[in-house]
């Protein structure tokens, strides 16, 4: 048994890794720049860089030795980047109509948005040409060590990668020295910082975070995601637990009666109602319920989370909308059991109907019931996205919708990860319950 548990837990690890990977990649693409979202558009590049550094956003995504830096905005004339912004304050340059930036022979200084870090290697990737030919180009970080020897500039567009050696001081500009020839043209420029370690990536940072059970910080509210999850779980459970258990009891009870009185008017009516209930859209239940029962009839509060009365309507909507599918499923399961010989035997030896139904039929129908029930438990945790956002219940469902709308990456990741872990745990629990319900099943 212990061995079985251990083996199952080990089998979960690759799936967990897959979930982490998918959430990482997917939600990374969703969000824009988290630093800009958190600090606002008017934050200084230095502040943004600082934010990125503490949260690990300035590293390569999966792996890589070079990463972007906020000291210089990537600029590419062919992609229509704004040259006045990138090259603002540059001495020794002028703009030409074609979109490139021209440097005449001499010394020009390009200011940086924020100082380069001390003792860190950078490199500048330039798309340059010098139509006249014969000139050389050298780039040095201001205050840093004179890094490269002058490189000859070709006459055709070429990408030059110019290393900038680490200096002890803080450089806040790049000195460009052009000697000989005519004007030098630049049409794209990208400044990159060397990582101390190629695997020191955002993924590694994220995996480390997950391993420490640290889900990060919400970009929208600056709260810790772990705290938000803890606060949201209560309201979510208050909504989903009654739906879950209420639905379970009602649908199993009805299914038992249907199976017992098979093909009676009650059975037929219930089946028809179940199919009809299944076919009504979930949104319609909510919209119509809110309008007719809460607004028009005034039986329930329309919105809010002040008292238990607020939960009545969402719970009943959740119950009714889920009832159809459950009822049909359980009825099929019960029908399969109710014609078995042991039921006839039990009746023949004089047991009452309730005893037969509950002690014998229900007991033997447990396996499929467990399968469908236990696997639904994780959804208790994620809450109901729609019900919560419609009725203003501050649970995890509403939280996720808000997070998706505002691209609050860490919150979504947190909800998805915990949900996935619970799903896997529920899977394991299902198998354990099998063994409990049917002693013939051995866990190996």
């Amino acid at each position, binding site marked *: 048994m212990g061995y079985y548990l251990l083996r199952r837990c080990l089998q979960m690890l*690759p*799936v967990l890794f*897959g*979930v982490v990977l*998918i*959430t990482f990649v*997917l*939600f990374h*693409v*969703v969000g824009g720049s988290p630093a800009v979202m958190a600090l606002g558009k008017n934050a200084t590049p230095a502040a943004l860089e600082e934010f990125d550094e503490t949260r690990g956003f300035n590293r390569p995504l999966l792996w890589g030795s070079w990463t972007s830096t906020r000291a210089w905005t990537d600029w590419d004339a062919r992609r229509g980047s704004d040259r006045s912004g990138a090259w603002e304050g540059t001495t020794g340059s002028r703009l030409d109509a074609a979109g490139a930036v021209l440097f005449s022979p001499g010394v020009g200084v390009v200011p940086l948005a924020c100082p380069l870090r001390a003792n860190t290697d950078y490199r500048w990737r330039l798309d340059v040409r010098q139509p006249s030919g014969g000139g050389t180009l050298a780039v040095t970080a201001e205050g840093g060590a004179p890094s490269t020897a002058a490189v000859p500039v070709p006459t055709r567009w070429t990408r030059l990668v110019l290393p900038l050696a680490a200096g002890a001081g803080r450089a806040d500009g790049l000195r460009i020295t052009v000697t000989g020839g005519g004007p030098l043209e630049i049409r794209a420029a990208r400044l990159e910082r060397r990582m101390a370690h190629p695997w020191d990536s955002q993924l590694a940072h994220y995996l480390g975070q997950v391993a420490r059970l640290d889900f990060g910080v919400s970009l929208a509210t600056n709260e810790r995601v772990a705290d938000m999850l803890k606060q949201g779980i209560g309201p979510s459970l208050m909504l989903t637990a009654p739906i879950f258990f209420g639905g379970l009891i009602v649908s199993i009870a009805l299914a038992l009666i249907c199976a017992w009185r*098979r093909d009676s008017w009650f059975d037929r009516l219930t*089946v028809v109602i179940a*199919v*009809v209930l*299944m*076919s*009504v*859209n*979930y*949104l*319609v239940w909510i*919209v*119509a319920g809110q*309008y007719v029962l809460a*607004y028009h009839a005034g039986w329930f509060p329309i919105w809010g989370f002040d008292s238990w009365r607020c939960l009545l309507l969402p719970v009943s909507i959740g119950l009714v909308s889920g009832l159809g599918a459950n009822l*049909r499923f359980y009825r*099929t399961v019960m*029908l*399969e059991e*109710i*014609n078995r010989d042991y039921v006839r035997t039990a009746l023949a030896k004089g047991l009452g109907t309730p005893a037969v139904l509950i002690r014998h039929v229900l007991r033997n129908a447990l396996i499929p019931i467990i399968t469908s029930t236990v696997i639904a438990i*994780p*959804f208790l945790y*994620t809450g109901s*996205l*729609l019900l919560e956002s419609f009725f203003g219940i501050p649970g995890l469902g509403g939280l*996720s*919708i808000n997070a*998706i709308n505002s*691209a609050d990456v860490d919150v*979504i990741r947190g*909800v*998805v990860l915990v*949900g*996935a872990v619970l*799903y*896997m745990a529920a899977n394991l629990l299902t198998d354990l319950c099998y063994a409990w319900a049917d002693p013939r099943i051995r866990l190996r």
Partner: protein
Amino acid sequence: MTTFAPESPGVAFAGADAAAGGLRVWRGLRSGWRTRASMIVLALFAAAALWGEIVYRLAQARDRTPSYAQLNLDARYLPPSLFRHPFAAAAGAEADAPQVGARLYAGLRELARHPFGTDNLGRDVGQRLIQGARIAFQVGVMTALIAIPLGLLLGLLAGYFGGWVDDVVVWLYSTVAAIPGLLFILAIALVVGKGLTGVYLGIGLTTWVGLCRLIRGETLKQREQTYVQAARAMGLGHARILFRHILPNVFHLVIITISLRFPAAVSTEVFLSFLGIGVQGEPSWGVMLGNARLRLWQGMWWELTFVTIAIFAVVLAFNLLGDALRDALDPRAASKSEG
């Protein structure tokens, strides 16, 4: 569910003469009135989608605002024509024969004008419903075109080859299954961008898991059957065995899955469009539902009602047809559900 009782429930469909089997299934499907009714509903749905597509294409080709998007501020909030008492004038008039005829004609014209009413901008609800049918149909078909081949292929490969292929496929679908579904769909739709493509990919890339599991399990069983061993002994290649011999014997699962997934995809699209992630600038049922919800407070009940009825009819028809298909195609499940 006993919507349809196969003529010979004991005979397994797998391995039987395919043409005769298909004919039997078709005959069986036509026998129940519920199945027949749902087929009629679905035919109407497909016709509406086709009509909507023609209207849409024509408007695009002529570079005009399509009629379903035309604003008509004089005719806002018009209730359905039956509720506008179109014959009130004709009925209340004295017995003046030619005038009654003219009034009757006017009444009929009034009845035909915006029969489903107009919305808050004076757009015709009936035409928008048809456009909604077009989009719902597209979503159902496109998501099936993404999810079904994916699930089918992965399931077949995993079940047939086993070993590391199986491990990889099982890992893949366990991973996708572990991620809360709706959040996953929302995230994919956001990554791809607002619009129908995001909806297609979001739903398509998350709903292949069920089919993949089913096909894998069934292929595992079929692999041990004698016909597969015979095919292998005859020296047929893996591809030929998989697609010519095993595939036809597991294909009933595909049909059942499509009948179950189609309405689910329609419902999910409604939800996504309602949230503003799905269709942009076109009247899908979800967009209409969102609009109708806001106007409900102003007494505009008809848009919500008609959209509800449309979604309900299509989903119900698919549910009934799905039941019948399952009973007809999967004799094992059918005999199970018959007790």
